């Protein structure tokens, strides 16, 4: 290999490392932001829940809502809406670009005979 090539490749590598370092710093900063936000949301969520309990106690018993989904199915629906598969095939995998999944929909809304 030519000596100049050697220098060039060192230069290239240095540049790549620098870029990597920048990226890392940026990622760390992003993570910190996300964590901060998360902490805020947790606190807010707690407040909201407290408030909800208060309101629920004030109100007389609500009539049954329009939704007929069971609690566990509602949980699955929530996960699906957050962008995760809840079906047997791809459970826990991310749904790319909010793609729809026929298996998940079956799990959430499908009729199922009780054993």
């Amino acid at each position, binding site marked *: 290999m030519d000596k100049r090539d050697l220098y060039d490749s060192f230069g290239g590598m240095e540049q790549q490392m620098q870029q990597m370092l920048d990226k890392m710093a940026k990622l760390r900063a992003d993570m910190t932001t996300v964590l901060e936000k998360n902490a805020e949301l947790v606190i807010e969520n707690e407040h909201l829940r407290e408030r909800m309990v208060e309101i629920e106690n004030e109100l007389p018993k609500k009539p049954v809502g329009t939704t007929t989904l069971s609690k566990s199915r509602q949980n699955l629906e929530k996960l699906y*809406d957050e962008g995760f598969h809840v079906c*047997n*095939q*791809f459970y826990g995998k991310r749904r790319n670009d909010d793609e*729809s*999944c*026929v*298996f998940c*929909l079956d799990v959430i809304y499908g009729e199922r005979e009780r054993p």
Partner: protein
Amino acid sequence: MKFTINRSAFIKELNNVQRAISSKTTIPILTGLKLDVASDAITLTGSDADISIETTIPAVDDNNTLVVEAEGSIVLPARFFSEIVKKLPEDTMTVNVEDGFQTQITSGAASFTINGLDPENYPHLPEIDTTNTVTLAGDVFKELIGQTVIAVSTQESRPILTGVHFILKDGEFLAVATDSHRLSQRKIKLPEANNADYDVIIPGKSLTELSRMIGDNNPDVQMRLSENQVLFVLGNTSFYSRLLEGNYPDTSRLIPKESSTTVEIEAPALSAAIERASLLSHESRNNVVRFSVNPSDKTVTIFGNSPDVGEVTEQLQPAELTGDELEISFNPDYMKEALRSFGQAMIRISFTMALRPFTLVPTEDGENFIQLITPVRTF
């Protein structure tokens, strides 16, 4: 090994076999084409380890003008061999393997000598027992492939969904494919195969290649199965494909049995409207069109938009509309492909609710062909 043959008859078969030969294979000998010359016929074989195609050119058929002077086998580099054969000057050509694997191809004044490979190293084709045979009409089978293969997944991360699931039971042949976003299912009655019972998954890619080989002059396709291979016999040609291993998800329960809203409409009219709406939806990030059913004035409204470009609305008058008001969003590309598979037919679309999959069936014979599309949630 030495034979002389009519070039156009040979090219026709060569083209078929070449479908299986890939230049990107990791096994070098599979870039070659195997020629087996017997006293009464020559056999061409091509393979990419997933698909293998074998075809026989018999000497009895006078159109082939096949004259065998010496029997034998050779593997020739497929790409060069076919290009050479196609460019030869005369109507007939002679292939002669001299000493070793050097092969001489002559036609008129042109003479090529190319290096072949040892036929002993060529992998053996799977042996499939001939007792389990199902015979299908070529045109029906081709239609079935065309209708189901569209829903096959292209993502290698879901290997099992890259195939079409075939079930033969009680004289009924069922083909299902899904990529988890949409599903296509076709049934064919096969009363003569009443006691056969199969459950296999055939790679969609193999089926696409196979359907290209089913010409108008091949009325019947025979399907034979073994543990991990399927063989389709079309006249003198045998098409082998690997089967996909694993359990196909249960799809029978995915198809809704009831519906609250149904719309009957001409497939081409809806297809054209969806096509227009998708012009804009393709520009937006989530690529959906909204489909609103309005029973009070018996209309259907299709709406597509892209925040950057603009929006489109189109009102359609379906032939028939019953049930509740509904608003649903879906990926227009799935809809377009599904509609194309119906051709010119009148179709019935059945919805249950905005979040559940909906089905499309032809109004005639709605039992045997179903397309299912899942909606996209919009907030």
